[in-house]
C-alpha cells in the first residue's frame, strides 16, 4: 500500500507535527515500506480468535483512598512558563 502525501498531511495534523517537503517525501516512503511489511498480517486467519482487546488478569482495582501527593511546587516545577503555582498556556480565546 502506498501512503500519499495527502494522507501524510492528515496524519501530521492528527499527530500535531509538521514536516518540510523533503521530510514529507522521506516519511511517506518510510511509512509505505513499513506498512507494506505489516500487511503480512492480512494473510493470517484470525476468524476463530476471540477476546483480543483486554488484559483480563489486571481488572482488580485498588481502594480509592486519599493520600499525600506531590506538592504544587513540584507539580509545576518543570513548566516552561508558570505563575503563582499555575501553568501558563497560550491564549485560547481573545
Amino acid at each position, binding site marked *: 500500500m502506498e501512503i500519499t502525501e495527502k494522507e501524510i498531511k492528515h*496524519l501530521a495534523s492528527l*499527530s500535531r507535527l509538521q514536516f518540510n517537503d523533503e521530510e514529507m517525501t522521506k516519511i511517506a516512503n518510510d511509512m509505505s515500506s*513499513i506498512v507494506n511489511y505489516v500487511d503480512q*498480517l492480512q494473510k493470517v486467519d484470525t476468524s476463530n480468535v476471540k477476546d483480543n*482487546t483486554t488484559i483480563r488478569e489486571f481488572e482488580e482495582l485498588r481502594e480509592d483512598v486519599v493520600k499525600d501527593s506531590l506538592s504544587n511546587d513540584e507539580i509545576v516545577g*518543570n513548566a516552561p512558563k508558570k505563575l503563582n503555582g499555575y501553568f501558563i498556556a497560550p491564549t485560547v480565546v481573545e
Partner: protein
Amino acid sequence: MNIMNETIENVSTMLKNKQISSVELVKDSLSKIEATKELNTLHEVCSESALQKAQEIDDLRAKGQDLPILAGVPIVIKDNISMVGTFTTCSSKFLENYKSPYNATVVDKLLNAGAIIVGKANMDEFAMGSSSETCAFGPVHNPRNPEYVPGGSSGGSAGTVAGNQCFASLGTDTGGSIRQPSSFCGVVGLKPTYGLVSRYGVVAFASSLDQVGPITKSVRDSAIMLDTIAGYDANEFTSAKHSTEHYYENSFKNSVKGMKIGFAKEFFESLQNQEVLQSVMNAIDFFKSNGAEIVDIKLPHINDALAVYYVLSSAEAASNLARFDGIKYGVATTEYKDLIDFYVQSRTQGFGKEVKRRIMLGNFVLSSGYFDAYYNKAKAVQNLIINEFTDAFKQCDVIISPTTPSPAFKIGEKVDNPLEMYLNDIYTVPVNIARLPAMSIPCGVASNGLPLGLQLIGNRFSESTLFNISDYFEKNCFSLREVK
C-alpha cells in the same frame, strides 16, 4: 586484579569483609566513567550524591550493621527511569531540562537495598530504536569495539556494564531493548515477565509491552538484581500480585538433567548468519550432552510477531506521547500562531526523526478506516501467538533461540533504513507480544571479534528456571568473562 571487572557477588563479599570501602569503589567507578567517557554511555553522572550515599553505607557497615548484598555497589539506571535529583531525558531534546519530581518504584527499591546509583544511561530517544543512534545527545559506542553500535534501546545501560563503568544497570525492554544490546555488548540481560517489575516512574513507550529488567556481568548477579526490583506495586495498575521468590537463594541447581528445551524451527528458517546459527547449535548440543531433552515445538505465527509489534507499539506510543504538549514540561516554542500551532511547533522542535515516524505510524493504524485492518488485526494475531506459546510450554520448560540475527553492526550502517533496523528485533519481540520472560546470555564470539548472544525464553513467572539453565551454561560451557 582490576576491581571494576568483578561481579556484584565478588565485590559484595569484599565490601562485607572490609577489603574495600564503598567510597573507594564509587571512586573507582567514577574514574572509569571519566576515563572512558567517549563511549557516551551516560548522560548524567551523579558523583556527589553517589559519594555521599557510599559514605553512609560505609558508616553503617563500620557500626556492624548487616546490609543487603547490593549495599555500597555502584549501579547505573536508564535515563527513562525517574530519580529525584536527576534529569530524566529519555535521550530526547524534548525532555533535556526535565527534572524528576519523584522516584520510580525500582529506584526506591535499589536505594533501600543500599545500591549506589552513579549515573543515568543514554538510550535511543524514548526507547525507540535498536542501536542507540537515535539518542539526541549523540550515538553510544560499543565498548568491545567503539566503531560498532551497542544495540538499543538500552545501549547505554548495556555499554556501561560491558565497559566496566559499574557493576549492573537497569534497562527497559519493549521489543528486545534489554536483550539485544546485552547480546551486542556481551553481557547478561533479563526481560522479566510482564507485571513482575513495577514501571511506576518509568516513562511509558508501549504500556502493554514495556518491562524493566537488569543488565549484569553474570547470571547470578541478574538474580540478585531481580530479587531487589521485583514485586507488587499498588501504584501500578498492571503490577502482578506474585509472591516473592528469592531467586538468588533458590534458583541455582547446577543441573539441567531432565529439563525439556523447546526447539522451534520457525526461529531458524530466516537465519542467514552461520556464526549465529553455529553458536546456538553448540549450545543445544551442550545441553543435550548434559542430560536435557530437546523437544520439537511449533510456533507457526512467530514470524508475524514483528508486524504485530510495530502496529501495537506505535499505536501505544502515539497515545503515550500525546501528552507532550510543551505546557507542563519540555520544549515550549516561542513563536506560534495559536494554541494548536504552539503544540505543533513545540513537538516538531523537540522530537527526533524516529519518534516522529512512530507517532505517525501509530496514528495511521489508529485512524478511522484503518483501525480494524491494522490495530484490531494485530491484537487478534497477538492472541494467536499467545495461544501458540501456551501450547508450546505444555511440552517444554524453556525455548531456545538466537537473541539477534547478527552480531553488532557498525555505527551508521542501518540508520537510513528503518525496516532493516526493525528486523534486528525479530527473535526478541515475540517474547513481549506474549508477555513472557527471557534472558540473553553470551554464547560465543564472531569473527569480527564481537559477542554473540543466546536467548532462553520461559513460561510466565519462570525466571527461576531461566536463571538455573543460564547459570549452568555460563559455568560449564561458555563465559565471555573468561575469553581473553
